């Protein structure tokens, strides 16, 4: 092992002899975060984190002790603390687990990178300052912000039954933002919504020429929105670009399919689900065009990995096939509790939180409709892109989402730009009205580092890839008091 975690496992095992099984899960994180605002330095931050979660099993019950003290003594104390917690729960555990939920897996995973050497801070800031300049296309732009975040996560897992896992995730995120004002109208435009541009990879992701061109477009669109009418109210066909499909899939498909929500674990915080255990195999979630996959194997998508954090090897699975719900987003633990089929998705935000059911990469498979054909087939519609608002009920039924940028579709053509576009609906009705799925030429992958869930609370990386999609008969509306 790179960090001699096996030696620490021996120390923990010696300290907690009453445990029938022990596992260690180490997570080391390094990150850099550079921000420019209005063409000047704003922030430069470096971060470092390192620690280990010791997990013990006693009579079918798991408990944990998490510590940043990586000495044998520190890990032994954490093991004893975990042992105390496991013993205290005797007779009150939600399930009696066996070691089938802690497989003795061996896995190695590292993000594929084409450019492994980093760029110097002055080089990165030169780009960020240029990006601010490109965003400021007129005096009506009152604020510009450009951000780059780059980091690395190293995971290691060992256990007394032989798990041996090492994974290294390299990622980069960027954000470009322009705020424009004319009189009382203020509009914000970003590159693909708040933190939507986060991907796995190396420094090749910092494609400065493309990003400068995108910054200019964002600035122009922010100013364009100042003169646009507010989005009209009414029902029409809604076309969503992939950077909004990310949010739509995440909130109205991903979360309701998490088995821990269906089992009730999240009822006190994030919420339950309108999906019931009995729905798997028969429930019509969406139209026949809807095919949703859990796919941790997509190169570059943010939540790709080789194994989850209890050692279950990851592979692609279809969750919704031709509109029918066939599989849930549930880990080995949730599968044991529910008897349902699941995936390898028990993940944690870091060493200081226990893994729970998470989304990973959740994608909508491409269809066959070209973008032009999709728009050409719509008599009365609206296209929306880049998320700016998201809200959904605790069962994941009634949602309301907003976008930064809208364009009306009239008689098969994209016409005028509208500002403050919002839409709302009910998840199953919305997805059953999925009327067109774009072909692979419209397909794009995005990711966000900010999916929140769990008690204690955790944020985690998720990736979502989707083609452009059209939904019939959606209630849309604009802003204003």
């Amino acid at each position: 092992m790179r960090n001699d975690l096996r030696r620490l496992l021996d120390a923990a095992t010696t300290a907690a002899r009453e445990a029938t099984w022990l596992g260690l899960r180490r997570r080391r994180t390094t990150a850099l975060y550079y921000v420019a605002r209005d063409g000047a330095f704003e922030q430069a931050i470096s971060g470092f984190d390192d620690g280990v979660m010791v997990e013990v099993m006693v009579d079918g019950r798991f408990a944990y002790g998490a510590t940043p003290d990586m000495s044998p003594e520190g890990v032994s104390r954490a093991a004893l603390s975990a042992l105390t917690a496991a013993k205290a729960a005797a007779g009150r555990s939600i399930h009696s687990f066996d070691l089938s939920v802690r497989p003795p897996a061996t896995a190695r995973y590292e993000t594929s990178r084409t450019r492994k050497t980093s760029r110097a801070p002055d080089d990165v800031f030169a780009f960020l300052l240029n990006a601010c300049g490109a965003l400021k296309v007129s005096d009506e732009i009152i604020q510009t912000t450009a951000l780059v975040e780059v980091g690395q996560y190293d995971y290691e897992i060992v256990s007394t039954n032989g798990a041996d896992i090492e994974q290294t995730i390299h990622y980069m995120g960027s954000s470009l933002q322009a705020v424009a004002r004319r009189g009382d109208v203020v509009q914000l435009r970003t590159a693909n919504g708040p933190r939507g541009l986060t991907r796995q990879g190396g420094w090749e992701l910092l494609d400065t020429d493309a990003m400068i061109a995108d910054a200019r477009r964002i600035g122009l669109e922010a100013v364009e929105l100042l003169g646009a009418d507010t989005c009209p109210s009414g029902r029409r066909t809604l076309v969503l670009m992939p950077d909004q499909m990310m949010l739509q899939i995440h909130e109205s498909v991903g979360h309701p399919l998490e088995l821990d929500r269906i089992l009730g674990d999240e009822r006190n915080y994030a919420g339950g689900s309108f999906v019931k255990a009995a729905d798997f195999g028969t429930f019509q979630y969406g139209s026949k065009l809807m095919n949703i996959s859990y796919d941790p194997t997509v190169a570059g998508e943010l939540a790709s990995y080789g194994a989850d954090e209890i050692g279950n090897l990851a592979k692609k699975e279809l969750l919704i096939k031709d509109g029918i719900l066939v599989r849930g987003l549930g880990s080995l633990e949730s599968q044991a509790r529910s008897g349902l089929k699941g995936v390898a998705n028990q993940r944690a935000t870091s060493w200081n939180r226990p893994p729970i059911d998470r989304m990973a990469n959740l994608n909508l498979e491409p269809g066959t409709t070209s973008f032009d054909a999709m728009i050409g087939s719509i008599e009365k519609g609206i296209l929306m892109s880049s998320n700016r608002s998201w809200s959904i009920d605790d069962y994941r039924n009634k949602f309301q989402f907003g976008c930064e940028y809208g364009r009306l579709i009239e008689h098969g053509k994209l016409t005028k730009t509208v500002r403050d576009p919002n839409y709302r609906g009910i998840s199953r009705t919305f997805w059953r009205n999925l009327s067109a799925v774009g072909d692979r030429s419209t397909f794009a992958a995005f990711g966000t580092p900010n999916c929140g869930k769990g008690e204690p609370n955790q944020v985690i990386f998720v990736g979502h890839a989707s083609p452009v999609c059209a939904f019939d008969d959606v209630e849309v509306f604009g802003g204003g008091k």
Partner: protein
Amino acid sequence: MKVDFKAHFEGVATLALAELLPGERAAIGYAAERTYFMRFNNGLVRQSGTVEQSDLSIKLWKGAKTYSVQVALSGNLEVDERRVAGAISDARAVMPLLPDDPFQAIPESAESSDARYAGSLLPEAEIPARVLEPAKGLDFTGIFSQGQMCRAAANSAGARHWFQTETFLVDYSAWLANGRAVKSSYAGRDWSDAEYASRLQATRQSLGNLDKPEKVLDPGKYRAFISADALNEVVTFFSWNGFGERGIRQGESAYIAMREGRESLSPHFSFSQDFSIGVQPAFNEEGELSPECLPIVTKGKIENTIVSSRTAKQYGITSNGASDGEDVRSVSIVAGELAEADALKALGTGVYISNFHYLNWSDVQAARVTGMTRFSCLWVENGSIVGPIKDMRWDESLYNMLGAKLEAVTRERHLLVESMTYDHRQVGGNLLPGILVDGLSFTL
């Protein structure tokens, strides 16, 4: 051996400040905790364990350069001294490559403070029994947490602050088979089995209101009594695109129209950032103190905004000790005249809102927020509870909810302690009344 966090902070802070070279300045923030978590579902333990952690933030200034470092600490002073020394060395190598910081604000504050609150917490080996046994018979779901939390700050001007508290929180909901639930919590420093049992008894009684036929509302405008718990979700929007000075000047605040006199809140609505409510320290990560009480909105008009030293430097105004994010901390909404006991009578016919869920801006510039009702929201007719409502989406401008449509504010206020645990157990809380609103817009 458990880490003595105070000695640990003194050790790493002293080292970091002593390592500074001539011309260098630094501010040091510190957060630490030792926490026992027990997550439960259906009255049974889902996950339990302990987390011990501490981390240090160092902001360094030299000439016109500014750089921040965040370092997780091991708890072992020898190891951590090496980590901190390495982080400062690395920072020195990077700083010459950064652009100048035009709004560099180096703290000059040199005050000190030391606040420590001991608690009487549960023995760890007894936690499942003491928390879950009294809830027997309930479908009881949520999280118990307890332990010590510390926050500290120091800077090269001489400031040195320490805040330490030992607290517990049972954040729970109790569910009926019909999918309805009552949400509640029991929090404090000194655990009392009797007080906890009393809280659970109140929960059992409240469940009685939910075992009635569900009222399905049509979209439209309804009179609504918004409880302090529900209003706590709205208070988030005082910070997010909120009353920070920078956001107002740079187009991201929802309250630009209010600042420019085009909008106002109700003359019955006032709130302050008030650290006298005693749940979080008044110092920020750079060792700067905020005034104990800072009125933000008085009788519907902005009296002060939240101003960091950086913003103060940028715009030539005065800082009030805010952190860089310019969040409002320890919100205290001024009490009104409506007795809580008269709330249903004053509501007449409408919705009693116990909790909101998943709020977000639907139009920032119009201060318009959308969200859901959740848990035990009730339909009330002529001052009497009829039964639970089917959860509804609402979409309303705060200029209406807290402005033209605000009819009354309760006389009683409730201290709602922070329950978030992202990264760390977070300190803080708000002192809030309930409010009566005439014509809240329900949309779906």
